[in-house]
C-alpha cells in the first residue's frame, strides 16, 4: 500500500507511488486542508503524484526516500514557493 492516512494529520507515501495514487492523494488532501505528507519511505513518485503535490502544496515531512525526488523535487515543492 503506497498511500496511507496515519490518523494523526499525516498522509504517508510509502514505496513506489504510481499514477493511480494521484487521485487518492488529491482526495485525501482536499478532504483535510492543512494535512501534511510524510514521504521518507517513498521510493519513487509518478509525475501525476508530483503534480498533485505541486498544485496543493501540502507541508512535506521528512526526506524523500527517492534520492532524485529529495534532490530535485523537494525544493520545487516547498510550500513557501512564491510562484
Amino acid at each position, binding site marked *: 500500500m503506497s498511500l496511507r492516512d496515519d490518523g494523526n494529520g499525516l498522509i504517508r507515501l510509502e514505496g513506489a507511488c504510481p499514477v493511480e495514487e494521484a487521485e487518492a492523494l488529491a482526495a485525501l488532501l482536499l478532504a483535510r486542508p492543512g494535512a501534511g505528507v510524510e514521504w521518507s519511505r517513498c521510493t519513487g513518485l509518478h*509525475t501525476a503524484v508530483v503534480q498533485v503535490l*505541486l498544485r496543493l502544496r501540502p507541508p512535506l515531512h521528512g526526506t524523500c526516500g527517492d534520492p532524485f525526488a529529495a534532490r530535485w523535487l523537494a525544493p520545487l515543492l516547498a510550500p513557501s514557493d512564491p510562484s
Partner: protein
Amino acid sequence: MSDAAPALPADDLVAEFVTEARELIEAAAEDLLALDGAPGEAEAVNRVFRAFHTLKGAAALFGWPAMLAVLHAAEDGLSAARAGTLATGSGLVDLALAALDATARWTEAIAAAGAIPAGAEAESARLVERFRALLASEPRIAPGGEAGPAPDWAADLLTEVGDRASGELTAVHYRPRPDCFFAGDDPLGLVRRLPGLLALRLAPAAPWPPVEELDVFACNLAVTLLTADPRAEVEAVFRLVRDQVTIATLAAPKETAPSAEAAPRTGAEAAPRAVRVEAGRIDALVALAEDLAAARSLLGDVVARAASGTDLTGLVPALRASDERIGRLAAELHREAVGLRLQPLARIFRRFPRALRDIARQLGKEVTLTLEGEEIEVDRDGADGLFEPLLHLLRNAVDHGIEEPAARARAGKPAAGRIVLRAEGRGERVVVSVSDDGRGLDPAFIRRRAAERGLMPPAALAALDEAGLIDLIFAPGFSTAAEVGAVSGRGVGMDAVRAALRHLGGGCTVESRAGHGTTVHLVLPRAQSLARLLLVEVGPELYGLPMEAVAEVARVPRERIRDVGPGAATVLRDCTVPVFRLADLLAVPADDAPAADGPRSDAPSSDPSAAEARLAVLRSGGDPVAVEVDRFAGRLDALVRPLPGLAALPGLAGTTLTGDGRVILVLDPDTLIDGRAGEGTT
C-alpha cells in the same frame, strides 16, 4: 493446485510475448525488404522503428539483456534514419535484418526452452558494435548541434547553475501532452534518466484551474532543465516524446557564441489525443451535475436552518430527503461516468486468431476460429481480465476438445475443427463463450477422476447428475500437471479460470455433449458497479464484506460456540454453522485473542462484550459459514478496485476508499472460506 497457480501469469506472459514478437518480426522484415527496394519511404521506416520499439518494450519485461541490447541499438539506428540524420541505405537495412534475424531465433528458443540460447551475448555485442560503427560512419547532419546562447526559457536556469558547470550544456523545455498519463508516460521518469542534471524547473503549463476542478490525470506541467549530458544522449532519452520537447545546446555559462539555435518545436501543434464520447452521454452528465447542484443548495438551506437554532429533530425529514436525493443522483452520475470506461471486446478478441493458429500448428491440428459479438462493450478492466482466461480456454479447446484429423474423419466431421468465440450482452452482464465441435467432455471419465482425486465424498459424487459432474472440471485439483499437455499450461487448471472470473465479479459454467463439443460460458458485469459493503473491524483494521454474500449478522453468547472436531461451530436457526475467526483467516491479530489452546467458551476477558461473539453469516457455495469479527462498523456503497493480478491473494477481492479517505481491503467470501471449509464441517 493453489501451489501451481502463480505460474500462470509468467507462462502466459512469455507465450504472449512470443506471439507478439513473431508478428512484429514478420511485419518488420517485410517493411525492411521493401525499404531495400525503395529507400526513401518514410512510413515504412516509421513502421520498422515502431516494431523494434514495441519489441524492446515487450522484451524489457523479462530481462533478456542480450536481446534488449540489440533491439535498443537497432531502435537507435532507425531513430536516426527517421530523423533524417542517417541514410536508409542497404547498410542500415542489412544490419536491421540481421538484428531481426537474431531476435527471431532467440524468440523461438524462448518459445521452445523458455530461455535465450548460450552464445547470444557475444552475437548481441557484435551487432551492437556494428550499429555503433554505422551511426559513427554515416554522415550526420545534426540540426541544432552547434552551441549557442541560451533561449529565453533557459536563461534563468543558466543563472541558477552559475559556475557549477563548464563546457557545453543541453537545455530542454518539455511540455508533456495533457493526456500523456493515459499513454503511460511519466515525464519526470525521463528527467530522472539524465545523470548530468544541473537545474530543474517545474511550472504549470497553463494557469492552474481552481482546486475544485482539479483533474489529477491531466498533465499541466512544463519542465525546463539544464544538463551536462551531451545533446545526443538527451535526444535519446526524450526520443519518444520528441514532439513535446525543445532541445537547445548552450555554451557554458558566462560565454557567448555568435548564433542562436533551438530545435524546431512542434509540440504546440500536436493535437491531443482524445476519448471519443457520444454527445448524449456528455449531455446526461451535465444534466446530472446540475441536479446535484440543485440538491446541494436545498441541503444548504437545511444547514442554514440548523445553524440558526431551529429544533434539530424537526430537520430530520428534510435531511433524510436530501440524503436520498443526493444518493440517487450520485448513483446515476456514477452509472453515466462508468459508461465512459466501456470498450468493445474487439480489442481483446483480435489478439486470438494468430495465437490460435500457432497453438494449432504446434499440436498438428487444423482449426478455424470464428469471432462473434466483437462490438459488445465491457468495462476496460473487465476486458483486460478476460484475456488470460480466454487464451487458456482456447488452448484447452484445441488441445483437449478438437480431435486428431483422422478421428474427426471417422466421426464424419470436417477435418478442420471449429472454435467459436462469441460475446453477447444480457442486460447488465456480458456473456463470452468459447465453443468447440470436438469430442466433448466424458462424464464417466470425470466421475472416475473425481473419485481418484478424492474431490468429493463418494456418496455425494454418486448423487451428482451430468451437469454437476462436468462442473467438477472447475474444482481445484481436478487437473494436474502430470497430464495437462505442454500447450494447455503447466499445472494450471480450469479452477484458475473460475478464480479469474470471480475476481472480475462474474463466474463461469460449462455445457458439453459427448461427441459434439464443449461450450464454456464466462459471465461478467458489463460495467463497474458500486458494491454494497458491510464494514467489519478486526483489531484496528477495517475490512469490507460484500453485502450480497452476508446472509445475516448475529451476536452469539460464547458458550454457544462449541469446538467440534477440527474447528468451532454454533447452532443458528436449528442449523449447525461452522465458525471461523476472521483474524485467523487473514492471519492478523485480533483485539483479544483467546488463549491459543483453551476452548473458546471460557476465554477470559476484561471486556464485557467479549462474552458475545459477533458473527457475520456468509453464504459460501451452499452452506452458511459464520465469520467472527471484533466489531461491525456500518455500511458503505463503494467502487471496489480489483487488486492487480500479481497482488491477488485468496480471500481478497480488492480495495476501496472510505468517505474519510481510509483505504480498506474488501474480502472475497468465496476464497476466504474455500480453503477452510473442510475444517469446520465434519
